Each structure stands twice: as structure tokens, then as C-alpha cells.
């Protein structure tokens, strides 16, 4: 089953990846460019984590309804966050505090790595597969698929939630990838 929150068909090209299929896909902001990600308690000064959480929620709801995911699937679902430039907002806030000689807000410590945003999604949805955060050199989607493929062939996960996020453009895309169903015809 392939579903999208957009009216457009999925643009994900899986031709280079054997054994993976797109179970669900969500693009933020999608058809309404004025849409804002829901505020995310515990995260400040940056849209990075809210964008990830919103796209992930939009994607996973299509498959699991409300959180959490069923335990048997959640236990075998990895979370992969892919961002070329990482969390610009938090890095800016940290640098600004240092340059101004101000006391570092403790909350920035807890969101100072991309893992925190990935972990937020994992906690909400009960996803207990590997947590991986990368900054790709080439095409982000192609590299995200390569990372997901390694997790699946390694049998570290059966499904992989990939979230591609870039600040500035304020866009995030979430894909739930799974094993390609065997052809029976």
C-alpha cells in the first residue's frame, strides 16, 4: 500500500534499492504552504525538531492511526533523520549565547544533537529500532534510501521511518519504508 498526504503521486524512486517499498509518505507543509508545524514541548529556538515531528506524525498516522505503533512493528522500526545542514536554529542559538557571553540555556543542551528530535519521534510512536542521523553529501533522498537499505539488509529493522528535513526551506518529508511484498502473480 502506498499512501501520500499530497495529491501528487510519490516521487520516490526505489529503482536502485532492492527489497524496499514505500508504505506511507508525508510532505510538510504539503498543499498548504502557510501551514506551521505543531509546537513541540521541550524544543525551542529552532524549527528543526518540530518539522521532523510533524512530518513523522503525518506519515505514521496513515499507517498506525494514533500513536503509539503496535509493539510488534514499533520494536522493529528504525528512525533515520537526514539533513544536509543539520539543525541550523539550535547551532545559531548556541553560537549566539557564546558570542554574547551569556549563560547557556540548559534546554539547548538537550536539543543540541539531531538525535533528540529523532528520539522524540521514537518515544512518541514506540519505535525501538536503530536511531540514525546523517548529513548526506549528494542527493539526500538517494542517500536516505541507501541508509535504510543497509538497516534492512542487516536485519537491524524491518521498517524504516526516514525523515528528510531542511531549515530555510522549512520543509520535511517523511517516508515509512518496508520490505517489498513478494510478487505472487
Amino acid at each position, binding site marked *: 500500500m502506498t499512501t501520500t498526504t499530497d495529491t501528487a503521486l510519490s516521487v520516490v524512486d526505489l529503482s536502485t534499492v532492492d527489497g524496499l517499498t514505500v508504505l506511507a509518505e508525508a510532505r510538510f507543509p504539503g498543499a498548504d504552504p502557510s501551514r506551521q508545524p505543531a509546537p513541540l514541548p521541550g524544543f525551542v529556538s529552532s524549527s528543526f525538531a518540530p518539522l521532523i515531528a510533524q512530518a513523522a506524525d503525518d506519515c505514521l498516522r496513515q499507517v498506525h492511526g494514533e500513536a503509539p505503533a503496535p509493539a510488534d512493528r514499533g520494536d522493529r522500526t528504525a528512525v533515520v533523520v537526514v539533513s*544536509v545542514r543539520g539543525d541550523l536554529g539550535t547551532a545559531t542559538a548556541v553560537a549566539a549565547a557564546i558570542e554574547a557571553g551569556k549563560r*547557556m540555556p540548559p534546554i539547548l543542551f538537550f536539543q543540541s544533537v539531531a538525535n533528540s528530535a529523532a528520539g522524540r519521534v521514537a518515544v512518541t510512536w514506540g519505535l525501538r529500532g536503530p536511531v*540514525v542521523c546523517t548529513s548526506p553529501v*549528494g542527493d539526500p533522498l538517494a542517500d536516505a534510501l541507501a541508509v535504510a537499505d543497509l538497516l534492512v539488509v542487516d536485519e537491524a529493522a524491518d521498517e524504516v521511518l526516514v525523515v528528510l528535513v531542511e531549515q530555510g526551506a522549512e520543509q520535511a518529508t517523511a517516508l515509512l519504508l518496508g520490505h517489498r511484498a513478494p510478487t505472487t502473480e
Partner: protein
Amino acid sequence: MAEAHGAGGADVVVTGLAAIAGTGWDLAALGERTAAGDPAFTPVTRFDAGRYRTDLAAQLPGDPVLADELVAILDRACAQAGLGADERVVSPLLVAVHGDPAVARLPESDRTGPGAIADAIARRAGLGPAPRAYMTACVAASTAVADAATMISHGRAHRVVVAAGYLVEQDNFALFDAGRSLATDGHVRPFSAGRQGMLLGDGVAAVVLESAEEAARRGATPVARIAGWGRAGDAHHITQPDPEGGGMTRAVTAALRKAGRVPADIGYINAHGTGTAQSDAAEAAALHRALGTEAARIPVSSSKSVHGHTLQAGGLLELAVTVHALRTGRLPVNAGYAGPDESLGLNLVLGRPWEREVDHALTVNSAFGGANTALVVARV
């Protein structure tokens, strides 16, 4: 028990390994000081740390540049592996780094990310494509090793080079201070009574991994084998570990299964052991769940008590320490020990390095986001 072969594919061997840390400019210094339990913490000189709860970190002298050190360490690891230029250029490079603090001071439109660092390093080191940088915090390097091992064991590559680095700088120092994670008594005391937290440290390391067949074809001499690897998440809390060690338990179990080993085969554990109260307790719980009664027997130490927490580089630096321990038969002392924490029930390496012939060791790491990794390293 019969030898397993990774995930059923090629054996993954280490043919090149190099590391520098606050312990000194080579792997020998790192190995000797971690074996002896000789901490490398000194007052920070790179910035004014007087305003923080501690001013200590384990640093190399001066103010080295991370990209330069990564290129240099890759040269050393590749030279040990005997890789010529034609072999280097077709060897994919996986890099674990956080980012460049200088980039965070640029206008947002001019900023690049960790991937750009990986790409530049691959080009300067004459290595093959760097597809990405791993920025998975304290499991970044061990995740890169797991991916590299997967690529080799499944025939996606004959050889993969992995590099990781962190050099102490003010942004992260201030963050860890704000998070009250740094030890204010000047000691990292993993699994000890009275542990107060971590101290940061420099770490830059590189490893050449290849299939045993490829190493034999080239006439390269393996220094160790990556026998198994596993990773799993806690889904417990954004930053705190699962107190029951759920993710690490499953990571260790997966790594042992892949290696075809049982807990009784493990002769040493290089623990994550940050020296923080909750994290060490969660890790001990995980080791007991994953290893059963063997957890109370297997010698354990955290070399962070000597080289500090090297963040994104930790997994690779601690792999280097583990390989050194297997090759020398000297298990690193868990430094900073101030007395037993009876609730943990671990067999800590204390006093002097323990002389043991160990065939298989575990090295484990965990990170924010509930991420956990485990590697089984075999002596060759």
C-alpha cells in the same frame, strides 16, 4: 562454537587503525595510558573555561584543526593497511562528526553541514566517495562502523574506511556545562561510588575495514576482526537512557548473535561508561539483561575515565582502545574509582591493567535519542 561470518557473508577485518586523543599523538600512547588508567585531563587552554563548573578536559596540545587531523589520521590508517593511491580512491569513506563551530557563525545562507566536511576530507585524503556524515551524537562513529561492516559482509564493498573526530571547543563545553553533565571534582569515575559526571576529550581516529578475502588478496595483515554488530533504540526518553537498558540489551544481543558468540565467550567489555549516575546504571542493567550471569564475571572498564568523552568520535576511539587491549593482552583500568556501587554488580578492572588473553571483546555506546550500539571485536 563454530565461527559465524558477519551476517552470513564476508568476514570483516581491520587492516589499518590509527588514533590520537588527549593521551597523545598516537595509538600507542592511547593504549598505554588507558591500560594504566592514567587520566589525561588538564585545564582547558583553547578558550576561557573559568566560568564553567570545571575547566578540565583531555586535550592534545595547542589548537589543532579537526579537518587537518582527520586527513592526517586517515593517512596513517591507510598506510598501515598498505593502501596505495589507486586503492584509496575506490574505498568509500564514512565520517562521523558533529559540525564545525565556525560554520554556525556564518550567515545562514553560507552555511554547510557535516556532509560537506566528510566530502572535503575524502577528497583531501584521496579516498573514494564519502556518501554522508554520521551526526548520531555519541553513537555516530559506531553506527558508521556498523554500516561499513554491513556493506562489506553483504558484498556492497570490499573495503570501507571510517573516520571520526571531535576536538574540545567552547560550544559543546558550554552545552555540557549547562546540562550539568560535567564532573566538578575533576575525575571521571565510571560505575564508581561518588561518580559526578563526564569530562570532554579530544579524539580523532580512523579504521580501514575490508573483507578477509580482500585483505588476503592484497597481502594485508589484519589486526582484528569485527565479528558482530548491533544497534537498537530505547524509545524511552529524548535524552535519558532507559533505566532498564532496553535498547542496549537488544544491541548487545544482536551483536553476539551476528558474531555467533555467547556471553561466556566475551573476555572484556569496553563500556560506554560516561561516569554519570543514570547512564552508568542503565548500562549496567543492560549488560546484566544481555549477558546474564556472565555480566558479573566479564572484566569491564570505561576508557572515558582516561581520554574523556569524545562525543561523535567515541565509538571509534573506544574501538581502537579495545583492539589495542586484545592485541597486548592488557585490559584497561577503569580509572577514577572511588569505591563500589554495589547496585551495579560489574567486575571492574581496577588497580593495574589485567593481563588476560582475550579472544572476543564487546565495545558499547549509547546516545541521546535512546540510540545504542554494540560491536563484538575478535582477536586475530
